[in-house]
């Protein structure tokens, strides 16, 4: 049963002002004098309460740095919340940071296998769908060459084809609609539509306010890690636009 429940979820990053902490600084610097490289606390998410049930299509909107992607990565289990209680039930598939996690010396075919294995697949299940992934990526003979020779667009196409080859219960999407060239984008949109239809529930992060009402039935507006509003898509977008729209300055 696909379901997401967040209760008072908070995530605080502890980052250093400059580079990483060195052993010398840890052993000497902090004991005898005030650190020149203090820890800064960044509250990426605070007090987020949210319940997403089966059938929901939730759009997450907000300005840059509002915590949208952090929320998605927290739902995916990549980040663990520092406060609150989180329950994510169902098989999760996430579409973010698609260009990461390739073995550049391995071929496209091999990378299809590795990425699928990471998601818990076996050689038998991968054999069944590798051709479909290859066909969708349209990379043809390039799949026989190491991915170090791929262009950025080719890499994302392959990643998209692999990531969307599974049938998820919980689908998490972060701004991946601009994949590859125009022709591939149309194909990607169609694939996304199919996935969204099949997934039991979906959470999508986007800046494209036009597409949110078409895809989502609910929306959440985040601002500096806080949840400003949650409810029907149109109402949330209208509220966001009224507050977040750039102020016109008289000439």
């Amino acid at each position, binding site marked *: 049963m696909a379901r997401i429940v967040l209760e008072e979820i908070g995530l605080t*990053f502890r*980052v250093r002002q400059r580079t*990483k902490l060195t*052993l010398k600084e840890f052993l000497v610097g902090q004991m005898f004098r005030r650190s020149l490289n203090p820890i800064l606390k960044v509250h990426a998410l605070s007090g987020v309460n949210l319940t997403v049930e089966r059938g929901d299509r939730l759009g997450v909107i907000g300005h840059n740095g509002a915590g949208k992607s952090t929320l998605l990565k927290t739902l995916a289990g*990549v980040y663990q919340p520092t406060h609150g209680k989180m329950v994510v039930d169902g098989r999760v598939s996430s579409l973010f940071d698609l260009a990461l*996690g390739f073995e550049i010396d*391995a071929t496209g075919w091999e990378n299809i*296998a590795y990425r699928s294995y990471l998601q818990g697949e076996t050689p038998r299940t991968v054999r069944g769908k590798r051709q479909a992934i290859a066909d969708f990526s349209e990379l043809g003979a390039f799949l026989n060459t190491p991915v170090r020779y791929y262009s950025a667009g080719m890499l994302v196409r392959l990643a998209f084809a692999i990531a969307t080859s599974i049938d998820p219960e919980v689908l998490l999407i972060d701004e991946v609609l601009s994949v590859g060239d125009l022709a591939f984008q149309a194909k990607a949109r169609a694939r996304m539509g199919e996935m969204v239809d099949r997934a039991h529930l979906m959470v999508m992060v986007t800046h494209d306010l036009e597409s949110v009402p078409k895809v989502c039935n609910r929306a959440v507006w985040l601002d500096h890690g806080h949840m400003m509003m949650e409810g029907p898509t149109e109402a949330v977008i209208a509220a966001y636009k009224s507050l977040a729209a750039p102020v016109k300055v008289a000439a």
Partner: protein
Amino acid sequence: MQGLSTYFKEIWRRRYFWLSLVKVDLRSRYRGSAFGIGWSLLHPIAMTTILCVVFSTMMKTEITDFAPYLMAGLTFWQFVTCSSLLGCECFFAGEGYIRQHPAPMAIYPLRTVLGAAFHFTLGFLLVIVLTLICHGAGFLGVAPLLSLIPTFALLLIFAWSLAILFGLANVRFRDLKHISDVGFQGLFYLTPIMYPEDWLENRRYITVLFHLNPFMPFLHLLRAPVCYNAVAAPETFLAATLITVATASAATAAMYWQERKIIFHL
């Protein structure tokens, strides 16, 4: 305890993933090299030959006794240092995957250690061949050879634990790899790899250090079969097991504490 068994089940569920990465690492290490995997065999052979020529004249020992002793020590040392020093980088090497998917973090140090274990196994097969050349085909008994199986298993867990500890520490303190590099060089000379163990007897502090050296039981377990055609004493197995359990417990505790914090430090 249940959490630990679920954790290992998750690691096992992704076995095809980390085994594939080990294969990629091994392949890319020798990519474009004409001699390929042969280099990993040639390295201990060359080192043993050079050191044998230099030291056997100094130490007045039989080269046939000294060569397997030396090569077993060098192969072991190579495994331990590779697991620890390459282990320092293991989470950075897996960063792309860590940022995408919440798989158990222990698979990344395991990837490093299995790569090193492959070279160690090849190297130790050479040690066995060298022993047979030096002492004759009938030298090695079945029991001493079989005793190497639990030794290898202990060593694998010990090295995995070391890689976890070094990997986690290096994520926090990037200087660690360089410090460890120097530290392992010092330890190399304090451990009887290139010289007989009796050199360290009756030398006050050095002798104390020698008896506290956690690598010694493993060296004895590896050398007893190939150098003396014997199974190591039960006390040696017990010591190696205790050291492995202690290191693995420390690694488990550290992983439990740091598992979900690593990503914030990459």
